[in-house]
């Protein structure tokens, strides 16, 4: 009896507290208003628009007025001859990018950590993240210019080394597309992504290193037994985040790199959604169909993120949530 009374008083007290907070802090809700309106309009609005995936959208009828078609668009997509190719292209690029792109910043950060000369270290660090500020349009243009079979310097070098007459058309050959995509990303993103590991490494205790040196541990041993374990939580969190976007291949770059010659490997789910929605040949776009594919993409992503996070939590005790 006494316990429930106590609970009642506590509840009443909490309610009073909330009331007081509401009265004192109403201005905070005004502060929040722009962000809430923005997120509601531009993020939750489109989520409501997802019902288009189950409708045959007609612009004149609006989202609500368009007739329902059930799961027709999903079956169309599953049965489409493109389906398996899109999935394969998307997964191959994603995993290639993850396997190459993920360890690079860690390696760079550790390498920078063992550069003796302070000036050279600063210089190298600054230089490696300049490419991050270059836009995708310019990055792809640079690739087009540098790897051009006639005038690009890469082919000039290849020609002079091998005596080949015609250069290699890197941007218009299917078998080079994935390498070009992934390695240009490495060039652009490694320095920037390394910053976080560099900061984490700077936090590693000096005493650990000193003790290890006195015990005669080599640099390799110190990297393996001190540095890597210390930054492991950071590595895990970033890996989980990357897994969450595993099938979200950066469509901006792919779209710019895409041409008729490499489409068989460059068409991924997200670019397909774009190409179906905004056809260049003047045919009518099918918004229902492309929304359905987009939804499928997002749901798979979300599930992978949850799995990755659960696994990370189980294994290391650290995850996104």
């Amino acid at each position, binding site marked *: 009896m006494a316990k429930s009374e106590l609970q009642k008083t506590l509840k009443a007290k909490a309610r009073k507290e909330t009331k007081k*907070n*509401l009265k*004192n*802090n109403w201005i*905070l809700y005004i502060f929040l208003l*722009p*962000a809430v309106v*923005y*997120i509601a309009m*531009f*993020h939750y*609005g*489109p989520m*409501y*628009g*997802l019902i288009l995936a189950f409708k045959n*959208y007609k612009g004149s009828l609006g*989202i609500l007025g368009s007739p329902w078609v059930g799961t027709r668009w999903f079956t169309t997509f599953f049965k489409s001859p493109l389906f398996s190719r899109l999935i394969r292209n998307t997964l191959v690029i994603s995993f290639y990018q993850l396997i190459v792109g993920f360890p690079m910043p860690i390696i*760079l950060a550790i*390498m920078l950590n*063992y550069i*003796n000369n302070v000036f050279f270290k600063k210089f*190298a660090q*600054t230089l490696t993240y*300049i*490419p991050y*500020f*270059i*836009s995708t*349009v*310019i990055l*792809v*243009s*640079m690739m*087009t210019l*540098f790897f051009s079979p006639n*005038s*690009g310097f890469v*082919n000039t070098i290849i020609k002079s080394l091998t005596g080949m007459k015609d250069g290699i058309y890197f941007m218009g050959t299917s078998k080079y597309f994935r390498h070009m995509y992934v390695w240009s990303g490495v060039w652009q993103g490694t320095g920037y992504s390394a*910053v*976080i590991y*560099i*900061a984490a490494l*700077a936090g590693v205790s*000096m005493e650990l290193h*000193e003790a290890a*040196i006195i015990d*005669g541990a*080599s640099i390799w041993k110190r990297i393996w037994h001190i540095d890597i374990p210390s930054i492991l939580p*950071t590595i895990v*969190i970033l890996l989980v985040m990357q897994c969450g976007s595993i099938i979200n291949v950066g469509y901006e770059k792919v779209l710019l790199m895409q041409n008729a010659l490499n489409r068989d490997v460059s068409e991924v789910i997200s670019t397909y*959604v*774009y190409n179906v*929605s*905004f056809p260049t040949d003047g045919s009518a776009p099918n918004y229902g169909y492309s929304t359905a594919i*987009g*939804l499928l*993409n997002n749901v798979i*992503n*979300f599930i992978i993120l949850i799995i990755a996070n659960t696994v990370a939590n189980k294994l290391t005790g650290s995850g996104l949530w």
Partner: protein
Amino acid sequence: MAVHKSHIKPSTSDRVFNIINHTLMIIIVIIMFYPLWYILCASMSDGKYAQNGSVLLFPVGWNFLGYKECFRTGKIWMGYLNTIIYTVCGTALGVFCSILAGYSLSRKDLPGGGIIMKLFVFTMYFGGGTIPYYIIIKNLGLLDTRLMMILQGTITVYNIILIRSYFVQSLPPDLKEAADIDGCNNTTFLFKIAIPLSKAIIAVVTLYLAVSYWNSYFWAMIFLRDESKAPLQIILRQILLVSSNASGDQNMDPQALAALNKMRETLKYAVIIVATIPIIAMYPFIQKYFVQGVMIGSIKG
């Protein structure tokens, strides 16, 4: 820092490590730097040499025709102006709104704050996708407007979380209590105490937003029809990527065509330089806050 001064002499394996490490680092620096250097050289070279591949280490046939052509092209200036408008307005609006929201959400005594935060974070991992977004924008009548170019991406949940975490870490509850006793209300506290203490995070969010506005092309490509509103990246795409396959007018006399192609080649390099310098130039001013901001970003929301 990590190479610690010690009275113990480095072992052979450590010396080998250091040699390999420094050599590799020099190679990495060259790989990072060379493409940028090459563009700079090619932009100041004669188009003929830029085209036949003789420019490798230094400008050949020194001239500035590419830049001249670049400054003469009205479209580039228009794109520049549009991009500046979108970047300045969008960044200012975004920083302001994110600070307001981040501050409110950093307060423990805000009833409902936790739920709002969860609803915000959810949108980072799940969204409607391109087409529903496009249709919403269309229904709002924001298609092909400058307003949409400013609103696009102005408030991001990521930035709000950054600011919120910063406030939670750097503003001790005692500070607010002391201010309360002095009769300082929420608005005064935010603008007179919290914001002046948060220059680092404001600098980082400004940098993030400005870079994303300056470099974005995708949504402009989808939302804009009217070329006079096109930002710089759209114009760049036309000059650098779309026109690269065009070989000019068939009826043109071959000599003029060759000259035109030569011009186009250096113009491309000059345009890259002109379009990239402003955003890189911004970086040194913000550099000292940058690492701090990235660190805050790594702490989960």
